[in-house]
């Protein structure tokens, strides 16, 4: 739309207000804009290159996750949770399972806790790598993107070995896991780690002290701490503001209180802080997985209660007791006592919450997800107001919006 056509619609008052040289204009960015990976649309009100206002328009990937869960058994929801944050499906699986287990009031086995910690951290690395790679890509550092996704690819191969699929894992079950870690896991992890270390080193070499990159990241996308808290921001975003909050530390679940790890926090709350925090967290996650492999005890990964977990297959084939328990779980799903819980875990982008209401039947009466990036995108207009349009790209990248998660 040319300047003339815009002018046709302006009243004189508006022309006075806007002035001659700068004119406000409305720009739609998305829903399939190259710099908004994930389907989201921003309606920008621009004055020159300055963003006067911004309205994120989400929902293009809305699949009715919460409604689907109401019509499925508790176990059926696992494939659905895979598709929430598709960069770290294990964390969603674990978060959902922990919520239902909290509602059931059951305690999972020791080994299962360690395995769940390992897979959560594994996918935290994969999520952070995706975020770092995409940020670099959109700021022009294509090689960094390749190194990042190369390591992520290795993690996907490992994921496939653990559960049989790269992305749609559906690995965790209420009361345990579908299966133990494969025997080859520790060896394979060593290979993945070696490649990861090398790639992180290369990434640091490429952009760690590169002024072109740093100038785009440093002092852009700043949100002051008070506002960030008020918006409900969590995760690397909040830690970049200097707030020492991590669910794994504040309310340790699984085995996080037994591991030795640090929580990197930033000082300025800008994009560069978030980028560095993610890099540092990858290192922490690597060390956590190593510690878990070392500490992990032998034992079963499923609890021994046939009202919750499916009996072992050879029992099902050969004994009527296990067969009946199996049928009850398949036909009706596991019965969860009436009640409601809010259970929270640290997702890759912050607090991943599941609010589950049960009416005592085999199907949940309500499942609600609190996606971590939802609150970050909600704060985006606040961050970007008065800033330049080119800063929107790195800011949106380090917020790391995941379409599947925010739209559900």
């Amino acid at each position, binding site marked *: 739309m040319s300047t003339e056509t815009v002018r046709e619609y302006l009243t004189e008052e508006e022309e006075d207000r806007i002035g001659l040289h700068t004119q406000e204009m409305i720009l739609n960015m998305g829903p399939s804009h190259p710099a908004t990976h994930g389907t989201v649309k921003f309606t920008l009100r621009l004055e020159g290159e300055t963003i006067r206002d911004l309205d994120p328009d989400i929902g293009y990937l809305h699949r009715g996750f919460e409604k689907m869960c109401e019509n499925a058994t508790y176990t059926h929801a696992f494939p659905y949770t895979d598709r929430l944050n598709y960069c770290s499906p294990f964390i969603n699986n674990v978060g959902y399972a922990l919520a239902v287990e909290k509602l059931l009031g059951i305690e999972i086995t020791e080994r299962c806790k360690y395995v769940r910690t390992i897979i959560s951290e594994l996918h935290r690395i994969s999520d952070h790598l995706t975020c770092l790679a995409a940020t670099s890509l959109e700021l022009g550092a294509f090689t960094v993107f390749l190194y990042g996704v190369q390591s992520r690819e290795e993690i996907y191969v490992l994921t496939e070995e653990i559960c049989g699929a790269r992305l749609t894992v559906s690995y965790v079950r209420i009361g345990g896991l579908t299966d133990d870690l494969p025997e080859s896991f520790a060896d394979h992890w060593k290979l993945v780690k070696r490649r990861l270390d090398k790639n992180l080193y290369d990434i640091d070499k490429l952009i760690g002290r590169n002024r072109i990159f740093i100038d785009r990241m440093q002092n852009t996308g700043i949100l002051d701490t008070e506002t960030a808290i008020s918006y409900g921001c969590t995760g690397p975003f909040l830690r970049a503001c200097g707030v020492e909050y991590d669910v794994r530390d504040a309310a340790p679940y699984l085995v996080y209180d037994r591991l030795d790890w640090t929580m990197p926090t930033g000082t300025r709350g800008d994009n560069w802080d978030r980028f560095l925090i993610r890099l540092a967290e990858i290192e922490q996650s690597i060390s956590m997985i190593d510690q878990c492999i070392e500490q992990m005890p032998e034992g079963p990964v499923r609890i021994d*209660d*046939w*009202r919750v977990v499916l*009996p072992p297959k050879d*029992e099902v*084939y*050969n*004994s*009527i*007791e*296990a*067969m*009946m*328990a*199996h*049928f*009850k779980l398949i*036909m*009706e799903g596991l019965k969860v006592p009436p009640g409601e819980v809010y259970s929270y875990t640290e997702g890759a982008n912050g607090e991943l919450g599941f609010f589950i209401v049960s009416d005592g039947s085999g199907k949940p009466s309500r499942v609600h997800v609190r996606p971590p990036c939802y609150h970050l995108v909600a704060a985006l207009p606040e961050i970007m107001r008065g800033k330049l349009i080119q800063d929107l790209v790195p800011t949106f990248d380090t917020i790391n919006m995941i379409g599947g998660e925010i739209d559900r």
Partner: protein
Amino acid sequence: MSTVTCTIDGVSVTVEKGTTILEAARTVGIEVPHFCYHPALSIAANCRMCLVHVEKARNPLPACHATVADGMVVDTASEKTKHLQEAVLEFILVNHPVDCPVCDQAGECRLQDYYRDYSARPSRLDVPKVGKPKAKPLGPNVILDAERCILCTRCVRFTEEISKDFQLQTIGRGNHTEIDTFPGTEFDSAYSLNTVDICPVGALTSRDFRFKKRVWLLSRHETVCAGCARGCASFVDHADNTVYRYVPRYNPYVNDHWMCDAGRLRFHELQDHRLRSVMNRDAKGDAEPSVGETLERIAEALRLTENGRLGILLSPSLSNEDIYALRRFGKEAMGARFYVGGRAPGDADEILVMADKNANRLGLETLVSKAALKSLDALAKDLGSGAIDVLLIAGEHELSDAVIEAIDKAAHVVALTNLDAPWLRAVDRVLPTPQTFEYDGTYVSATGRVQRFERGVQPGPSVKPAWELVCKLAKLYGYADLDFASVRSIFKEISLGEAAFRGMNWKALRPFGAQLAGVAETMSPTIHARAGKH
């Protein structure tokens, strides 16, 4: 009668003297697990699942058999009792085959339910299972899998006490005991399928329903069997717009827990021979004539008919709402003559089956007075003498050749019916109406019970209930007074205007219905013999 007070799981219960612990617990909502106990059958106390601990009693007592005494303290849920339940289940399951995948009972099996609720742990016993005959046909409708049987003898007691034909017995001893018929006979009782319902496990299965659908995939709606004038309360189980089975629904005023085999299996006939499309004799082309267009033609013909020259042949198998709408239209708008047809009478027995095969004769005779209804012979005579120009046939009928011939001569014959029948060849226009399981309505049974049935299956797009068609027809004809939006509004008008129905409420018709005023409650002597005792 004197009462006694006892404590069950800490809850104080006051019941009549002679009540069993199990029934006393039920009055306060405590469920004691049981297999062999059935409220309508004698007490056998052989499954031992209902064992409970009673304070001061040396041994655990079977709750279905032991009667409540004053001051008794019963526990049905403590660790001690739970241990008993686990042990009994473990014992019952020793010889149970691993059959859930092929067993039709899976999904409504007592063993599965109780195992999950009261045990849920592996068996400690590992002995070879006793082999018994599998898939053995006992009779035309029932198949026995003796391995799955837990020998609760509910079926044996049913044939002895309810159907009274003594066709089943237990043979053999110890863990080789089996249910069987007497040598050389087969289980051909008219009530044999009730044993399938009361069988708590998958030992007796229905030959008709076998492997057709898994029960957990079925939807269930309340309905009334329209097979005879008894009007047994029942459930219709359906999935994907297909009826899979009828199951009796407990109604102490009508059928207690039971239902006859013929009534249960009648849905096949109704489904296979049902009319789905509008038929129009003078329609051109292959396209199905629309309901609206056909109704318009009928209204046209009615407008040309003089008052008093319309005949309406009513069937006693129409619902009260259909009859009421037809009566109002016929009487008020057209001054019509009413005739009664219906299905021909058949066999009867002392238990449930009645000779009159029409579900709603009492309703018809109450809503359209008996005097106003003329016989089929009168219809043939009136048609022959030319007293009727237009004949409207509503509902299901079995007509003799003479009547069909007479109908054929009438100038304009319209049918609102649901089944294919020979007399349809004499009809000019047919509008399909739904079956009992396809729409909402009420019937009056021969004993005067008004019962509601609800829609389970969705009929085709051109299938409309008779009352709806009549309301539309009245509108097209130019009689605007007849304008009902739903069955509920018709029933409301009936309950306000008709003396026999006065005070009835659509919602309150669930679950057991209401008694028609002026008709005494009469029950089948056989099935209510035990009920009277309690």
